[in-house]
């Protein structure tokens, strides 16, 4: 029960910080997508097998609170989680520098793909126009691109530390329960 409540708490906290705080401060640009950063942190800390159900739930609640179709975020987060898990295993994320580099790549690609994925489902009628606009926003407006990824990096560090602490706490609680049995 404690495990369930803690992870639900993380999901709601991330969503509310995103839609009710960050998006009201960074008005003109979507500088950071906390949900995809949480997916990355969960996969690195606990692995795909342990977290996939929670990632589905994170996607579901993103869809619920964003008031769009139900499904796009579930699809995006689960696919991202699988790819992150696959790449992490193949390229030894445990090694300090390669791990760091991979995380940076995950953040960059995750942010960009998040925007592209949403165009597919939100602006699907005018896919090419909005896609061009988004690509322009990412690769031509370098200031926004750099600021967005710096903020994402800082946010990831905070989320990773937070998620890591909570997952360790959950693991300790589970071990204690096993011992007492």
């Amino acid at each position, binding site marked *: 029960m404690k495990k369930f409540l803690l992870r639900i708490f993380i999901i709601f906290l991330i969503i509310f910080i995103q839609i009710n705080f960050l998006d009201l401060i960074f008005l003109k640009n979507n500088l950071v997508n906390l949900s995809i950063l949480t997916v990355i942190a969960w996969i690195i800390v606990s692995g795909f097998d342990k977290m996939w159900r929670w990632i589905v739930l994170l996607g579901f609640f993103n869809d619920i609170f964003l008031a769009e179709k139900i499904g796009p975020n579930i699809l995006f987060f689960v696919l991202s989680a699988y790819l992150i898990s696959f790449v992490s295993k193949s390229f030894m994320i445990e090694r300090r520098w390669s791990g760091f580099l991979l995380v940076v790549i995950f953040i960059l690609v995750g942010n960009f793909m998040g925007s592209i994925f949403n165009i597919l489902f939100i602006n699907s009628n005018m896919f090419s126009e*909005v896609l061009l606009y988004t690509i322009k926003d990412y690769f031509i407006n370098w200031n926004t691109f750099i600021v967005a990824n710096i903020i994402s990096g800082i946010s990831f560090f905070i989320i990773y530390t937070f998620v890591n602490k909570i997952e360790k706490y959950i693991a300790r609680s589970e071990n204690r329960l096993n011992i007492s049995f």
Partner: protein
Amino acid sequence: MPVKKITSKKIFKVTAVCILATLLILWNPNNFFNGTRTFFVGITLPVQKLFSSLANRTYSFGEAISSIGKIKKENKNLMEENLRLKAQNVKVADVMKENEGLRSQLNISSQEGFNLESARIIGRDIYNNNSWILIDKGKRNGLEKGMSVIVADGILVGKVEEVFDSTARVIFITEKLMNINVETVETGAVGVARGNYGLGLTMDLVLQTDNLKIGDRVITSDISQDVPRGLLVGEIREIDLAKNELFQKAIIAPPVDFFKLRFVFVIKNYNN
């Protein structure tokens, strides 16, 4: 291979979830999930309001910090303006009378005829398009789908798209799905204002015989049944005078920066 071994494989889980999510997207069961959505939005509303209030304070604080250098200059300007306003105050009564006359001549609505519900913006579209906002008023406050949303001085900014118990989603007029019947104040040219994928507004379907001028004010016309007449939509910034086309087009510059809105008014009913 045993069934349990197959189902426990990572690729099986991913495929199953992807198929399910794709079916949900294609089926698009918005009504099916409306109850769930209303429930979660309702029970978390106080927390959402808390976060949005924190965001507003943080934003104001940031703006205050960044404008410290300007404050001294602004203070001087304000003092000068104050003196000028005192002098102008004497003429206000006359101006108000003239204003009433002009409003009736130009058919621009004043807010007096509207039953307005003020609302605070508590959420925003998280993607770059900035196509919608979430406001802190809903069914409980008498809001309904299709109601017009304005800011001060009768400037149209959007329409209520989806109503929950205590919140509502408002789509901006710059969104691609929006079509509003409009006319220009100065020349009376009629057309349709269309959203430009969150990037701006275009006035379309204007007859070649109608006269458009840069700087003309564009207001809502009385052809739209659900939008009150006379709400300001914007000013014409650019005209596309393609002679071989059946209709003229113009780009409308909205008078407000939609990104900076904090409060809006929903028109619950009105007398045209």
